[in-house]
């Protein structure tokens, strides 16, 4: 991983997506994967120790879930950009998905190098002007 690359934490309880995300991040210049988590709880822990710039967070996970984990991470490390991902349509997301501190929502099937770059370019300068 390049020294000034954007460090990414991938959070998903499904291995197929983690593996695909790994491939995409490997192939996208300027981004590097620093860690993977399979639950919201694990994501909160890793975010505190790894201090990633970007968290790709699955919404539907057993236990704490992506929304709650995003809320924790956003509260503890306001500089972190959090992108919610799921295989559901945006209307099927929980009502509080846009108020948890995440900067964007992405359908998993849309995930790729270009959309990642686009998202990063549009990231909010201040975390406080994000969806909250």
């Amino acid at each position: 991983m390049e020294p000034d690359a954007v460090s990414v934490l991938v959070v998903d309880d499904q291995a197929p997506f983690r593996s695909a995300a790994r491939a995409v991040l490997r192939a996208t210049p300027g981004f590097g994967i620093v860690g993977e988590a399979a639950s919201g709880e694990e994501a909160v822990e890793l975010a505190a120790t790894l201090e990633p710039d970007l968290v790709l967070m699955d919404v539907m996970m057993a236990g704490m879930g992506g929304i709650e984990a995003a809320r924790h991470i956003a509260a503890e490390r306001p500089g972190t950009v959090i992108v919610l991902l799921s295989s559901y349509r945006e209307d099927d997301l929980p009502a509080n998905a846009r108020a948890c501190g995440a900067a964007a929502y992405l359908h998993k099937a849309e995930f790729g190098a270009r959309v990642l770059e686009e998202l990063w370019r549009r990231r909010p300068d201040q975390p406080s002007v994000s969806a909250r």
Partner: protein
Amino acid sequence: MATAEGQQETMRKMRRQVKLRRLLDRVLVGAISFLGLAAIVAAVYFAIVVGLGRRPTDGEGTLLLLSMLGAAVAAVVYAAARDRVDRFARRLVYGVRPPPSEALRAFSGRMTRSLPLDELLLQLAELLRRTLALDAAEVWIGTGERLERAASDPDRGPASLNLSATEAPVLARSSVAGPAWLRVWLPGLFAGREEAELRVAPITHSGDLLGLIVAERRAASEQFSEEDEQALVELARQVGLALRNVRLDSELRASLEALRQQAEELRASRARVVAAADAERRRIERDLHDSAQQHLMALAINVRLAAELLEESPDEARGLLEGLEATVQEALEALRDLAHGIFPPLLADRGLAEALTAAARRAPGRARIQADGIGRYAPDVEATVYFCTLEALQNAWKHAGPAATVTVRIWEQEGGLLFEASDGGGGFDPERTPRGAGLTSMADRLGAIGGSLSIDSAPGRGTRVTGAIPLRR
């Protein structure tokens, strides 16, 4: 036999002797008391006239004797006629005693009102005692071979009589019974009133003895007239109807309660069936989401990535595309498993025996399937047996351990399709153990197509789960 007849003959002789002696005693007592009364009256008369007046002269002597004789005769006649005079006097003072038929009418009137049974019986006893001028009236109620005193006037509290299997029908057949008959068939009724004059009318319905009406007079009281006895019979008939109605009523209530419970069970079962269907949809949604959809999602991401890499690094793109075949296979496998879980294709295609044999091969535990003699059935019947059997297998391995061999047998019997899964595990007490979700869902599933489930198990004796489904022809 001869001994028994001999004993009966001796008994009859003894009873005749007792009766004769009682009659003689009554005549003797009457004669002595009449003579005594006459003597007292004469003595008093003589004392008054001679003691307080003067000696009678010649002509007056005859007159005195005649009038003494007259007074004594009057006293004796009065003593003999006292009962009738008393009754006349009572009739003057208390009014006319209603004829027994009156009691019938009064009781019929009460029966049309909705009085509680014990109140009705008490009123009957009071009415009977008053109307027939009894010393006591009782109503005994019972079923089969045990009778209980349900009402009595005057109140004598509860009492009970046990009848033998031969006594009850004999009593049920008699219309009204007197002391001689009762001493043979119901001697227990005389306890505490050995000398009483009793009449008993059995309360029956359709030949069954439901109770007794007991009318009691002291030995010295008025004899029971034919009219009295007729009234007892008629009252017993009416009470029989009333009791029959009460029993029908309580049977109806019991049936209603059973129906209510069935309706409640049905409602609960329907709710469980709906909940199970919802849970099944949720499971399918989760399965779709967690398996096939995830593989397809990764496929979409990787295909896009490969397309993006195609120009800049074609080798990397090729490697990526080659690796995708495995992802496609995984997605297909996941979809196949899911479809199989929704409905096994072999079941629709080849029937129960093959589908279950295949399912048992795939299962984690050991199972022996015996389903040789069965054919093809309606899809709902086959699906029910299939899924219930799988549930029973899973239950058996869960409780008896995965090492246990479960035997599944499916056969046709008397117009029904039956299946059983038996294991040699630890077993349990079905009476004390609440049914788990597995057994409940099996029972619901079977109930939905008119079938039933039974569990045969005991601690240490393994478990056999049996299901039966009626086959529509």
